[in-house]
């Protein structure tokens, strides 16, 4: 259960939004929309705890995320604008390092099979800098499958993806929601997902 009350955000000297409230139970999808500069990314970073809210609270399973600290991060996966990949490392290495840091060791085979699911078979051993933008995005998406965290926060995750990759993202999210996960997604695209509980937030400038 992810819950926000009277959330407000100020960046620099500018107020981005205030009085944002939502309540997401397991299995719900939350889409954040709005023009550039309306604070979509800031809201997502607030949810991740990377940004401290100017007002209001965010609660995860009833506890304020500020007081949860590192424990909160065991249940969270975040994919931001930047893919968070090391250019010098191969997708397999990238994946193994991230999951190692998250506390679950991943063998070479496991990493390869996960990368296979996101459509990177045959590319697992190329340095990430040789991959196309879409392929890097797919590598970043593979991260979601390693830890199986209950809360996904995805920022503009559909950009620079071809139609097969968009289908892949949809199926990943659908599967995640069916398992009782929560997904927070900032995107301009229509998601067209079949889900029982769907909320949308429109941020204005």
């Amino acid at each position: 259960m992810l819950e926000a009350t009277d959330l407000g955000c100020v960046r620099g000297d500018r107020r981005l939004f205030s009085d944002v409230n939502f309540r997401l139970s397991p299995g719900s999808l939350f889409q954040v929309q709005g023009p550039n500069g309306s604070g979509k990314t800031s809201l997502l970073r607030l949810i991740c705890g990377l940004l401290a809210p100017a007002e209001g609270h965010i609660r995860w399973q009833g506890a304020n995320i500020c007081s949860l600290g590192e424990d909160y991060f065991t249940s969270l996966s975040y994919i931001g604008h930047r893919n968070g990949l090391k250019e010098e490392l191969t997708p397999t290495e990238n994946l193994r390092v991230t999951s190692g840091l998250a506390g679950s060791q991943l063998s070479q085979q496991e990493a390869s099979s996960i990368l296979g699911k996101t459509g990177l078979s045959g590319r697992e051993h190329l340095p990430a800098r040789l991959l196309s933008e879409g392929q890097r995005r797919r590598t970043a998406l593979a991260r979601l499958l390693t830890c199986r965290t209950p809360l996904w926060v995805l920022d503009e995750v559909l950009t620079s993806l071809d139609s097969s990759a968009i289908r892949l993202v949809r199926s990943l999210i659908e599967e995640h929601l069916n398992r009782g996960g929560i997904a927070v997604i900032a995107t301009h695209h229509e998601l067209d997902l079949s889900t029982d509980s769907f909320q949308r937030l429109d941020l204005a400038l």
Partner: protein
Amino acid sequence: MFRWIVLRDLTLAWKGRVDVLSTLFFFLIAVSLFPLGIGPETNLLRLVAPGVVWVAALLASMLALGRLFANDYQDGTLEQLLLTPQPLYLVVLGKVLALWLVSGVPLALLSPVLGIQFGLSGKALLVMAVSLLLGTPVLALVGSIGAALTLGLRGGGLLISILVLPLYVPVLIFGAAAVDASMVGSGVQGSLSLLGALLALSLVFAPWATAAALRISLE
């Protein structure tokens, strides 16, 4: 988990080993320039050697700080590191340890070669290497605070030197004093144990301050 962060940074350092080597070459060249500026008189060179080597080590360690967080900041992996389910303190400590292994340790190992150029005795060479082994981790730890504070700022490289060099003063004093003492034959234990005390203190405080600075810089 701590192992992963150290291994990750060591692997990355290995893949970008040109950067690592250029820090060492900087150290080598900077120290070798001094005799050209001062003159080749052995007694004079021996007198200034501890200070020269230590100042060059200070500058080289400071240059190496650029690698600590800047690349991770640019490609978004630093954000991911902040979201790993372990204390940020340990992440910072792991990264600093990796940095020290590829910059501080080679520096200390190289220093006797430079000391020979300056006509230092065997004992002084040994003390110089030991003092650098004790002092360079302090430089890396304290420097990491500056590196975290200046992330993504214009003129970050120059700014970091203004922030960090004044804080390096005690390390420079105790480090150079140890080598000095070994040359005149008085005890080196005093300055070396002071360096050790600085190391202990910075191990406790610096990663904490760096973690706080990282959170501020990534907001």
